[in-house]
């Protein structure tokens, strides 16, 4: 064995994250209730914002931005607490993020084409 190797100190079965989570970090019931309360508040906010937009004129983009910001906040809460990502191991956290990165790549690149192309094109029905 020419290449000397270090002793197999870590890397045993997985990412060596065992010790870190051996106690299984745990989310208490109280936290769940708090998160749920926050979700309900956000829910009220998003419907409320929509109702207000029906009365006073807001720029359309702002309305969409508010609704999406609230939806993202809700999602973050659910993912972090209800789905335990906050206390999960690193690989799980990585994949939880990867989905949104993948989606963002798809949207950003595709929409960049639509912006640059001048969408919509004439919606022409054909004979």
């Amino acid at each position, binding site marked *: 064995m020419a290449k000397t190797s270090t002793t197999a100190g870590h890397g045993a079965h997985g990412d060596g994250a065992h010790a870190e989570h051996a106690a299984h970090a745990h989310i208490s019931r109280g936290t769940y209730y708090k998160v*749920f309360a926050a979700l309900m508040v956000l*829910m009220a906010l*998003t419907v409320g914002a929509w109702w207000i937009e029906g009365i006073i004129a807001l720029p359309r983009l702002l309305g969409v931005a508010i609704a999406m910001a609230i939806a993202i906040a809700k999602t973050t809460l659910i993912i972090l607490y*209800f789905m335990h990502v906050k206390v999960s191991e690193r690989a799980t956290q990585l994949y939880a993020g990867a989905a949104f990165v*993948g989606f963002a790549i*798809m949207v950003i690149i595709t*929409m960049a084409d639509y912006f640059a192309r001048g969408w919509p094109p004439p919606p022409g029905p054909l004979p």
Partner: protein
Amino acid sequence: MATTTPTAKPAPAHEHGHEVHGRELMHHFESAQQQKETATLGMWVFLVTEIMLFGGIFMAYIVYRWAFPDVWAEAAHHLNTPLGAVNTVVLLVSSLTVALAVNAAEEGNRRRLLTMLGITLLLGATFLVIKGFEYGEKFAHCAGAANPVAWVTGGARLEEKECLVPGRNFIFPEAHGAEGSKDAAASHGAAASHTQPQAGLGSPYQLFYFLYFVATGLHAVHMVVGLTIVSVLTFIAWRGVITPTYYTPIEVGGLYWHLIDIIWVFLFPLFYLVH
């Protein structure tokens, strides 16, 4: 290369039992901890694919909403927002009950676990019933009835022709949605009063409803799958398989349920709350 030195544990599964919970530990895992983490990671990787699956629909949604903002605003007024809001709350509550079910399983409280799973099933069913009613409304309108009940009983007819189910019979009604949003009336309300109803094929209004039916339909399919999973979980919990050392099925099934919730959290503002 690797110096292979025999470790303590020989291959066959039944000899693995270095911990008390030998039965549910599959032969190819070394420890329950490893098995649970693997299952969680695997589920998350699968959820990534689910998010990308809906991602395709969201992509289409963004493209067309950006192209036809007025159409979107008008079309969305014909969805039943109160019912959509109720459904959102129903799903959020079910997410809480699932989280509490996992908590109960962790703590070994079988009774609370079963209660929480039961409530989740109930809420999931409620969601589907409400969704079904919403769909029913749209189909009833196509048949000329005012609501799904009238459709079956042959009761009240719809005064104005309307069919919001995409297809050959699609009729988008003249936008009286104008009174709903006063300022919007200036631009597209005037438009609506002069043009003939956007009849049948050839209007981007159909795109909205097509996306609505496909997105919520696919979501409903996931709900049915989720309900099946929760039913199975309830069954195995009832059988007493779930213990504080082995509750991976509840944890993993719960992840799936939360994902369904997350998808709806986006579907709701995107389809029901549009101006």
